[in-house]
């Protein structure tokens, strides 16, 4: 029991941190520009493919640097020459634009690497059990992911809260016009944030690819969860994104272990099972069975109870 608790906690945190790496860029872009970047998950996928390609030819370490850089640069250019022009036509155009980009990336990836996925593996340098948690060997690579993600959070948080550029970004989040009038180049800040966001998505792809299966379907699966994180955490809030990511990671992980259903509860309070079988299937559905959809339930509750999210400063 204790073993499972410890392992589940660790698993939940690592998954949560990976989510955070993706959600951090998304929430900043969303908070600042009011644009839901639908291509964010596709950039994550592209990051995984680039990571695979670069590690195959040069090595994992270069992939870790070049992959995110390439995506960051691509993201910045996309903002500068695409999104910025579309911006004047309103949010719907922007949304459609990012949607188009997501589609382009999807098709391009399928054209270049094929439709069945690629064998992107954990790099051999990190492919060993780091320590034993009770009886279970724990892979070094996952700990590496954890350390990297924590470092990213600390770095981002320090830049946003301590540096001058962070000050401007935070100001631009809430009062873009005022910041512009004070002489700061707000469009450039937007470009920077978009680039960094895309780069982080790319980084998440490069390190997430070997753990998950690198295939054209990987964007679709994660995209929905990401938006959930952003809304629960609050638009534009980095600590909110962190908390929401960890929350979702842990809730999902622990819910899977809970094989109890409403039926058990009804029996426990002493109602005869046959007489009380009024709910049909729902009565016998265990919490474990609905674990993967719990984040969406949390999203709904959050929207009803607190539309601005955990740490958000304004409503969705």
């Amino acid at each position, binding site marked *: 029991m204790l073993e499972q608790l410890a*392992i589940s906690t660790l698993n939940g945190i690592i*998954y949560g941190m990976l989510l955070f790496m993706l959600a951090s860029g998304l929430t900043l872009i969303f908070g600042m520009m009011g644009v839901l970047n639908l291509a964010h998950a596709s950039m994550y996928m592209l990051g995984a493919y680039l990571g695979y390609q670069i590690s195959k030819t040069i090595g994992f370490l270069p992939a870790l640097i070049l992959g995110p850089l390439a995506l960051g640069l691509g993201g910045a250019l996309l903002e500068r020459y695409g999104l910025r022009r579309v911006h004047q036509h309103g949010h719907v155009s922007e949304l459609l634009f990012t949607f188009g980009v997501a589609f382009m990336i999807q098709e391009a990836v399928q054209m270049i690497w094929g439709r069945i996925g690629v064998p992107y593996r954990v790099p051999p340098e990190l492919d060993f059990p780091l320590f034993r948690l009770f009886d279970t060997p724990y892979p070094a690579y996952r700990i590496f992911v954890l350390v990297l993600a924590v470092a990213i959070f600390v770095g981002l948080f320090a830049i946003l809260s301590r540096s001058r550029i962070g000050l401007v970004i935070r100001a631009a989040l809430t009062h873009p016009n005022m910041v512009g009038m004070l002489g700061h180049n707000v469009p450039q800040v937007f470009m920077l944030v978009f680039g960094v966001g895309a780069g982080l998505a790319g980084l998440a792809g490069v390190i997430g690819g070997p*753990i998950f299966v690198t295939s054209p*379907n990987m964007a679709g*699966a994660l995209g929905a969860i990401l938006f959930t994180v952003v809304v629960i955490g609050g638009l534009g809030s980095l600590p909110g994104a962190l908390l929401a990511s960890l929350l979702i990671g842990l809730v999902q*992980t622990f819910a*899977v272990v809970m094989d109890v259903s409403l039926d058990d509860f009804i029996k426990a309070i002493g109602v005869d099972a046959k007489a009380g079988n009024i709910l049909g299937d729902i009565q016998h559905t265990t919490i474990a069975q609905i674990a*993967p959809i719990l984040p969406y339930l949390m999203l709904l509750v959050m929207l009803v109870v607190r539309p601005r999210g955990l740490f958000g400063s304004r409503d969705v």
Partner: protein
Amino acid sequence: MKFARILAGTALAALALTSPAPAQDASTVKLALIDGQSGPNGFIGESMRQHLQFFAERKNAAGGVLGGRKFDVVAFDNKFDPQETIVQLQKAIDAGARYVFHGNSSAVAGAIVDFLEKHNRRNPDKSVLYINFAALDPVLTNDKCSFWHFRFDADVNIRTAAITNQIQKDPSIKKVYLFNQDYSFGKAVRAAATQMLKDKRPDIQIVGDELIPLQKVTDFTPYIAKIRATGADAVISANWGNDLNQLVKTGGELGLPVKWFTYFANGEGGVTALGAAGVGRVFAVSEWHMNVPEATSEKMAEEFGKKFNRDLFFYRLNTVITMLAQSMDEAKTTDPKAVALKLETMAFKTPLGDTYVRAQDHQFYQPLYVSVMSDDVPKKLEKTPFGFKTVGMSAAKETEVPTTCKMQRP
């Protein structure tokens, strides 16, 4: 998302369907393949089309049917959607097809059966026969069985019979965990496995019975921890796609010491995704695989690989084409009803063993191989160092399962 997918799908389908203009030759026998040719899973439908074309062309080269008439394969894109299937089915019938082939999704299969039952009743002189070569829901040869439907793939119960035959022979397996997707197919597997294990190995304990939402899980580590906590020796899983690849891959990464008995790990993309994690651990069941030592199929696989740059998989389609042609020759016509009457009583000897159609429910029985992923085999898959190696075989008779089918005959 869906809207755009449909848009792109339509564009692709239009391209695919207009470019090779099918010859309007009255003497050809049209075989319509109705399956998904576009979208993220379109590669599966594409592979099916290539297989069907390949075997039809082989038959044509060997003289065709009825003294020289040729098979003509035409593909229709149903986008994996039951409603679209009906539209495409009507199109296929209008184009003169009397034989419809389909594989992906039992929901689509059900739609085709319903449609043909009505269509064939109203147009007895223009009846259409449905050859199902991959939709596995047992209901199609049980409560919903139809005279106009033949299933040439081993259904859920038959595959489970082959898998449990293998488990029966393996004394190291004492605890089994069932891990399936939460919809009709996953539930059918779980019911069949529970029953058959109880009959064949009453000493085996079923330590877990998981149902996960279809293609919704993004992180499988909690499930791996849960399986580990039960001390299971083997997992039976009918998962497919990402739900399978991710599950087994995560298990390998976290060092979970179980045998995975799967229904689809040998499908396209499987070995690429699983890699070394699957070696010696991942079992699959199929009517044939690349490392079955048999000369004619080896030659076919080689030819197919050269022509389409992918691995031969649907060996059963060769049997289907051969048996269909033989039925036509025996019936001396291509009329589906006459052909079906021949086909339903046909016993046929393939190089791999005896096969036969059971007339009662139109289920085809063939020898089934249980194989394990291995890095020590002559034939590799998908340019990886891995392939599948036979560990057990069940003759057609050994996989037979009872049916509740009460067929309405025309």
